[in-house]
């Protein structure tokens, strides 16, 4: 990756982190608002190797667990899975187009919420079903929309860059 690309990518990730703690609170539906941190993780994981995605996911999940102690550890597990599977999915599906990346963002958000909900054991019955079938898909859609928008605005340069031997 070119140095200029690396800097631009780092700036994009930093902007997403800041957006999570500033812009996100202004959305009307707080629970279905786009998850900028998860988007940053997936953008990173798409460009990195699956192992690096897993490590980044674990660290991000651990930090987020500190903010939601009701599910401590489950966030780390969920983000590890999302980070690894995003990197792995890139290798398998060779996702270089925007629609495939949008699908990654949607599935990643849903999967993260599902793992947190199931692993923490704090959501049950109707609440769990509502989370899996209503709230999480909606949050997945908003996150994917923002992710696709970013890829289009930046003309795809945050997207996957295959390693060449």
């Amino acid at each position, binding site marked *: 990756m070119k140095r200029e690309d690396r800097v631009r990518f780092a700036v994009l990730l930093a902007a997403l982190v800041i957006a999570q703690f500033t812009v996100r609170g202004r959305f009307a539906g707080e629970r279905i608002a786009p998850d900028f941190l998860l988007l940053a993780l997936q953008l990173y994981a798409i460009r990195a190797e699956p192992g690096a995605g897993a490590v980044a996911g674990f660290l991000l999940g651990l930090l987020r667990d500190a903010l939601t102690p009701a599910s*401590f550890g489950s966030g780390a597990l969920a983000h590890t899975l999302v980070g690894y599977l995003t990197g792995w999915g890139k290798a398998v599906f060779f996702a270089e187009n925007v629609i495939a990346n949008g699908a990654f963002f949607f599935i990643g958000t849903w999967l993260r919420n599902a793992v947190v*909900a199931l692993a923490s054991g704090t959501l049950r019955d109707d609440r769990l079903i509502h989370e899996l079938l209503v709230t999480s898909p909606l949050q997945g859609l908003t996150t994917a929309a923002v992710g696709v928008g970013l890829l289009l605005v930046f003309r795809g340069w945050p997207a996957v860059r295959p390693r060449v031997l």
Partner: protein
Amino acid sequence: MALEADRTGSRADTFLFLVCVSLSLVVMALPVSWRDPMAGVLRRSVLAPLLMLQEQSTQFQASRAVFVELERQRDSAALAATFLPALRAENERLRGLLGLGERLGVGYVPAEVLHQAEPTSPLTLVIRAGGRRGVRRLAPVVSPEGLLGTVDEVEPRTSTVVTWAHPDFRASAMAADGSVYGIVASAGGSGPGGLWLLELRGVPYRQTVAQGTLIVTAGLGGVIPRGIPIGVVMDTAAVESGWERTYLVRPLAQPASVGHVVVLVIPADADASRGFAPRDARQ
């Protein structure tokens, strides 16, 4: 080519993945006495600047709303300037009525709620008030509607609140007229459409509670003061034959939608009911 390159790295990737999953499982299995300090260290170090950013953003948002409101008030005031003495008297009267904090008098700490994105975020909230402002562990946290939860962890600048939706939450409760006592606990998302509800447990079998009865804290147990509204009885949830009844209660305060809260730092044997408007006034 790229696919092959990814495959050559797959062994190391799998190893890293398994290590991260194992560490996550270890973290999940940690006892609460280890988890909470660990989370506290992260909040005070890496996350501190981000939480400060979120707090400032929340304050900016609130300030902007106040500014717009003030502009409206200024225009109205200009129009009604001729009635200034009457307006001043009315303003004094309204100021005396408005605001939960003012009604409570002393012994409260206002705080912003720093919402998070995870599905479990309504179970525990991080609020922007900590030990430096007098917040204590187990202090009740309320919104103008009623009880929201209790403080679980206190740090210098932030605190963690266990809300009534958390499976571990319990509070002694009673009907507003004192006729029935019980214990309130989370019923999970057992309401229609996954609505979070509470259960009033341990009501003697021979006593019945009518639908619509206001449930308030009973003040027993020396933790939460008496008289804080909790919710309204919806229906009977279960009957232990000849022994006790359990009622479903619709909570008044919603953790997911609340933006600002008040932490009560009054003695547990105090009566907090004067801080809350009568039920009819709230509806």
